[in-house]
């Protein structure tokens, strides 16, 4: 399988026998939630849609897979979501087949989507790769596969000798997992996990160094830290998570 990292997303294209465009955590309608938290920003749904359509245009995928948290508000659907979702989804459907792995922010999304567009929230295997949102235990079927998940909003901060040189930039985490912690049977080929950064641009995100202890999902606890690898949204390799977490990381660079 060949991945392609689209930094203009962030999005990921995975190609084997079909090509699947993966986007995670769009959080449509987040502006009305921010509004009640004191942040009055105009809706960015249109610009998020344009970013998605742009990714579709440059990759021409067979399928667009949204890795959950398509919308933001729980448990009730807001007026903003009710008015924006139909057009947003139709615009995508006009270009490509659409599937959703429902996330913890997606209750009520059934009203806006066809039944076959909504996949099992515990994960599915498409073209040999496992996908799920990531707030639940993954389905046992995913054992031995690469599991691609959202939910964690990973970001990385880079430091140099003087201070923080790059703050909170979206990042991918690729790691082998401890199957036991996911209630999976061990398989011949190791089960691996790829955490995809949030598409939603105001996400503060979780410092990738702290994800294993964050306790926000079973997946986060299953990460094998020492060999896990960190990539930027364009696929640039940064380092292993083990090394990024070690004290030695803070040594001066040449």
């Amino acid at each position, binding site marked *: *399988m*060949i*991945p*392609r*990292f689209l930094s203009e997303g962030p999005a990921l294209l*995975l190609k084997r026998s079909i090509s699947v465009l993966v986007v995670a955590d769009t959080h449509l309608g987040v502006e009305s*939630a*921010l509004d009640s*938290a*004191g*942040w*009055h*920003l*105009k809706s960015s749904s249109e610009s998020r849609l344009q970013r998605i359509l742009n990714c579709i245009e440059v990759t021409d995928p067979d399928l667009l897979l949204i890795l959950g948290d398509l919308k933001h508000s729980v448990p009730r659907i807001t007026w903003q979501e009710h008015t924006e979702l139909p057009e947003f989804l139709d615009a995508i459907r006009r270009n490509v087949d659409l599937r959703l792995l429902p996330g913890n922010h997606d209750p009520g999304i059934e009203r806006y989507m066809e039944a076959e567009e909504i996949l099992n929230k515990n994960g599915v295997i498409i073209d040999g790769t496992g996908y799920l949102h990531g707030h639940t235990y993954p389905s046992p079927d995913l054992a031995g596969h*690469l599991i691609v998940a959202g939910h964690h909003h990973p970001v990385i*901060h*880079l*430091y*140099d*000798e*003087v*201070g*923080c*040189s*790059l*703050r*909170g*930039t979206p990042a991918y985490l690729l790691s082998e997992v401890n199957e036991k912690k996911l209630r999976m049977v061990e398989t011949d080929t190791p089960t691996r996990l790829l955490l995809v950064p949030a598409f939603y*641009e*105001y*996400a*503060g*995100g*979780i*410092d990738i*160094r*702290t994800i294993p202890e964050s306790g926000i999902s079973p997946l986060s606890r299953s990460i094998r830290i020492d060999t896990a690898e960190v*990539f*930027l949204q*364009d*696929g*640039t*390799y*940064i*380092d292993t998570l083990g*090394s990024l977490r070690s*004290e*030695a*990381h*803070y*040594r*001066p*660079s*040449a």
Partner: protein
Amino acid sequence: MLPIFHSLLTMKERHGFSALYITPLRSLNRNMLSRLTWWCGELGLSVGVRHGDTTMAERRKQVLKPPDLLITTPETVQSMMMGSRLRQHLGGVRHVIVDEIHELADGKRGVQLAIALERICEYAGEFQRIGISATVGNPETVGYCLCGRRPFAIVEVPVASRLSLQVLFGGDRFDGQVEKIEDAIQGRGSSLVFVNTRSVAEAIGHHLIPRGDVEVHHGSLSKEVRIDAEDRFSKGQIRTLVCTSSMELGIDIGHIDHVVQFGSPRDVARLIQRVGRAGHRIDQISRGTIIATGFDDLLESLVIARRAVLNKTEPVVPPCCPADVIANQVAAIAVERGECGIETIRKIFSRAWPVSDCGSLLDDSISRMEEHRLIRREGDRIIKTGRARKYLTTNLSMITDERKFRIIDYVTRRTIGTLDESFVVGWIHTGAVFITRGRLWRVLEVLEDAITVEPAPKSMGELPSWEGEQIPVPFEVAEEVGRLRRTRNFSEYGADDDSLAYINRILSEMEKNRTPVPTDRLVMLEHSKEGVIMNICGGHKANEALGRALSILISARYGTSVGIEVNAYRIFLRLPKTVRAQDVREILFSLEGEHVEAILKIAMKKTALYKWKLVAVAKKFGAIDSDAEYDKISLHRLSEHFDGSIIEEEVYRELFSRYMDAGAAGRLITRIRSGDTEVQIGALSIIGSEGLFSSRDLIAPPDMDQAVIAALKRRLNAQEVILACMHCRKWKRKTILERVEEHPECPKCGARLIAAVKPYEEENIQIIRKKTKTPEEKDVEKKMLRSANMVLSSGKRAIIALAGRGVGPDAASRILATHAHGDGFYKEILKAERKYITTHRFW
């Protein structure tokens, strides 16, 4: 006030508030009330006070039966304009007195008040305006702020000629300095001791309160405690009040014989204002003593005292068309009227001098506020929305108040201190490390009003927390201090023997250490443990601009973050060890004066100062509520949302007028480039290490690639590599890349045919030593020979390339063939790694 009373009494009929007395402070209001109550009682006029502390009952009474004279604050004027009955009462205004107007005119509060007065005019018609100001360099400007283009007259009371100032050196130790204060207040009747911060006021109070005739007075104390101290002082029960700027404005606490200023007053206006509290009558001399506490402080005090006597007071600089005030007042007018034609607003604004030329700013502000749903626009009218009133009640004031965040230790669940909102906005993200109370803490979580932290081990990139903004020292003062360091005519400045002895001690020590004294004509770049200190007498704002511009250029050229700390006499650049004073000097000479502002604009956005100001201005625009929850959003990515907006424009306007002086920085650079000012490099001197840096920030590399390349270099340097001699095949060495020489040689045979092998390929070295090899083993040998040949011709560069993730001899030779240098070389490695990851790896 007497002519106004006369006017009020001779008016045919009075309705509403006939006169408004506006002061910047509630305490001043209370004080005025007690002074005017007697007069009004005798004259049969009614007087009242209305501000934040006024009870609901009192407020109601004022609505039903308005007093003839109302004492109030600019913010309360704003809130009164929201009520229909009170607006009617304001319609009766015939006189407005603005007390301590210099204090207001200097900032956005003054602009807001100027517009408010024009809004009152809409109901009351023209009225008499009287401004009472401390000595300022440009009274006309203050007059324009008050009156707009209406004719006005200035009545000046000469102050400088009545000043009697003395500067003393207080010694190095705090105990000694306090003794000096005691000497100064001894036998002088009543004294005010002014200090610059609350904590110093407390420390001095701690020493002196046991005497029994001293009290402390500052803004953190409760209203009752302050009023009690004021009362006891005016009754003569205590003779000395240790105070901060809380006592600067004209609160009448009876006769004051003498004023002590502890530490430099920072600017001339402040000194005159403070000392003016003594002998506050037209025929009396105002006596003041400055007790200086260090080398910078002493010279600065001498210069400021002399400039005060020469009447060189700084001008008041009113903000010119601040967009957030415009937005605030548009919302206020919308709420006041329900709906309003834009032309009417423009007419009101055109009479208010600070915004009279606002032009398209008004339209831009209106569009932006529409986006925040504060108003709706219908044709050429604006209509208030449901949000507008709520916005206005929380944004009556243009003062930026900072929330405090508690710091909670996650381990013990105890509160260990507080952080200012500006620090939280600028620096705090989960994982950030900062210093407070002398310990390092790592941020675990940002909550609504608290930050949870855990103790952190030593790491790079930590920052000390700070509190509050400092009073800037003007360019002219700092420059004159530089001249005084050069001419050394301290006696002409009235330095006494103690001061002279101290100054000479410092200067002779500088000479003994062979460290030149930086002056107005000499900039010294000094190496310190963590970076370079640039000694330059530019004052706060010019140094701030220059320091940031330099940092931006350094960070761009060397791809590193640069930490900066600035005060009036030096700029401290925290740098990696590889960047030295010579490099700073070279960059300084490459900088052109007129480019400073443009350079600053490139990189301001990622800094703590910009983010904090952005939040502050966005709040006034109604984009962010004053109590917005910071845990809900990424502040640092939010700033992109405001790119190109009027909010961003206002942030720049404020930064370049209030915090930085790009023009003055440009002049400093021009002098350096023309040779008028010399630049030398030297060791850390005692003047250079005289610390107390008042503003801190970090300039990150402008280009994301540079941060990534720095991370790559660090990863590669720590990479394990095995070197094996392909000539004698007897030697191998396991090391990390950082320790590898430029052209490694085999210590056994002296050959330079050295293969670089990845640690997991170590067994390959056994293979090449075999006498007979399988075809596969021959391939391994061939691959290692390729690697060795690359190292032979390109040296360490080849080894670096080969250390890349998944980079084998083929990819490495492609990297070397590009002949890319510096960052370009590392970018090629990153490219090869990306290619490997997407094409050659198992996914």
